[in-house]
C-alpha cells in the first residue's frame, strides 16, 4: 500500500513539474544564436576552402555576418526545423565589396545544425573540389555541421 501511494505521489510530482515548466520552456533555438554560430563557422571553413584552392585569407579579415530566418514568413524565427535559410555576408577583396552565399539550414532541438549550400555554385555547389596539388577532396563549404549552446 505504502509503495503504491509513494509511486502515485512521485508520478504526480513529475507530472506537475513537467506541466509547470513546459509552458514557459520555449525551445533554446533562436535566430541570434544561429546567426552567431553560422557566421564564424562559415568564415573558418571559407579559409580552409581557399587554402585548398591555394589562396591565403584570414578568418577575422572576412568580417562575416549571418542573417537567418525561417522559411515560413508567418512563423517566429525560433525553434528547431529544416526550413531555416541563412544568408552569409563577408568582405572578400576589400572592405567595400560584400559577397553573399545562401544556405538551407536544418536545426535540431539540441542546437546542432546542418547547413546545405544553396549558391553561388562555385562556392558551395559541388561536393568535391580539386585542390592545388591535384587531389580531389571534400569541399568544406558544400555542407557543414555545427552546434551552439541552447541552455
Amino acid at each position: 500500500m505504502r509503495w503504491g501511494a509513494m509511486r502515485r505521489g512521485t508520478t504526480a510530482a513529475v507530472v506537475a513539474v513537467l506541466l509547470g515548466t513546459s509552458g514557459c520552456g520555449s525551445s533554446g533555438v533562436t535566430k541570434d544564436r544561429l546567426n552567431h554560430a553560422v557566421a564564424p563557422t562559415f568564415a573558418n571553413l571559407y579559409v580552409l576552402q581557399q587554402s585548398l584552392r591555394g589562396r591565403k585569407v584570414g578568418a577575422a579579415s572576412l568580417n562575416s555576418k549571418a542573417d537567418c530566418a525561417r522559411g515560413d514568413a508567418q512563423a517566429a524565427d525560433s525553434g528547431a526545423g529544416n526550413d531555416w535559410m541563412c544568408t552569409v555576408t563577408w568582405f572578400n577583396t576589400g572592405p567595400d565589396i560584400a559577397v553573399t552565399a545562401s544556405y538551407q539550414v536544418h536545426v535540431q532541438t539540441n542546437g546542432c545544425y546542418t547547413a546545405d549550400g544553396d549558391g553561388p555554385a562555385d562556392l558551395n555547389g559541388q561536393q568535391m573540389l580539386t585542390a592545388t596539388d591535384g587531389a580531389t577532396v571534400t569541399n568544406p563549404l558544400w555542407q557543414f555541421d555545427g552546434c551552439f549552446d541552447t541552455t
Partner: protein
Amino acid sequence: MTAVAERTEPRQAARTGAWVVYRWELIKLTRQVKAQVVVGLCVLAPFLFVAALNAQSNVPQDTLFGRWVHDSGFSIPLVVLGFAGQWALPAVTSVVAGDIFACEDRYGTWKTILTRSCGRSQIFTGKTFAAITFSVVTTVLLALSSLAAGVLLVGRQPLIGLSGTLLTPGHSAVLVLTSWATVLLPVLGFTGLGLLLSVASRSSAVGVGAPVVIGLVMQLASLVNAPSAVRMLLLTTPFGAWHGLFTVRPFYGPLVQGAIVSLVYFVLCVGGAYALLRRRDITGS
C-alpha cells in the same frame, strides 16, 4: 573495546560478503555466451563499420562528423558515438543489468543463494557493482576500438571541428576520449534502469528489452520537438552533450545538465531496486 570489536565485525563480514558476490558474478559473466558476444561485438563492430565505409564513396551525412569519415580517422569514433547513444549503449548495458536479478527468478535460485552466508544487501551490492563493471568495460572497449579502427583504417588527419576549425590529431584524440567518457554517466543511468526493471518485473525479457524501448521512446520525444524542459529530463539527451566540446568556445551547460539528470536516474533506479528487493517475500513465492 569488546563493543567496538563486535560492531565492526559484522560490517567487515558484510563487506567481504558483497565482495565475494561481486567476484562470483564477474566469473559467471565471463562464462556467459551473451556477455562474450556483446564484448566481441564492441571490439569488432567498429572495424567492420569502417571496412564497410571504405568500400563505398557514400558517407553517413545525417550524423555529426559523418561527412568526414573518409577524411579523418578521428571522425569514426564520433560517428560510432552518435549511433551508439541512440540505442546500442542502452541495449549493451541492459543485456547484463536487466538479467542479473531476474535470472535468479528464472532459475528459482533466490532461496538457495539467500540461505547461504550472504544477506540481501550483500547480494544486491555485489550484483549491482558487477552490472556497473560490465557497462563501463563494454563502453570503454567500444570507445578504444572505434578510435583504433579510425586511426588504423582511415588515418590520423586533422579533424574539422564544429566551428569549422582544424583540430590537431593530438587534440582530436583527447576530445574523442573525453566525449566517450561523458557518456559513461547516461550509460550508468540505463544500467540502473535495467537493474530496477530486472528486480521489479522478475523477468529477463522485460529487464533487457524495456530499457531499449524506453530509450527509443525518449529519442522519439526529443525528435518531435518536445518542450526543452521535457527534453532535459530525458535520459537520452546526455548522450549528445559532448557536442559542445568541439566548438572554438566550448560550452558545458548540456554536460552539467546531463550529468545531474543521469545521476538522478541512477540513484532513483538503484534505490528503488534495493527497496523492492529488501521488501520482497522470497519464502512465499
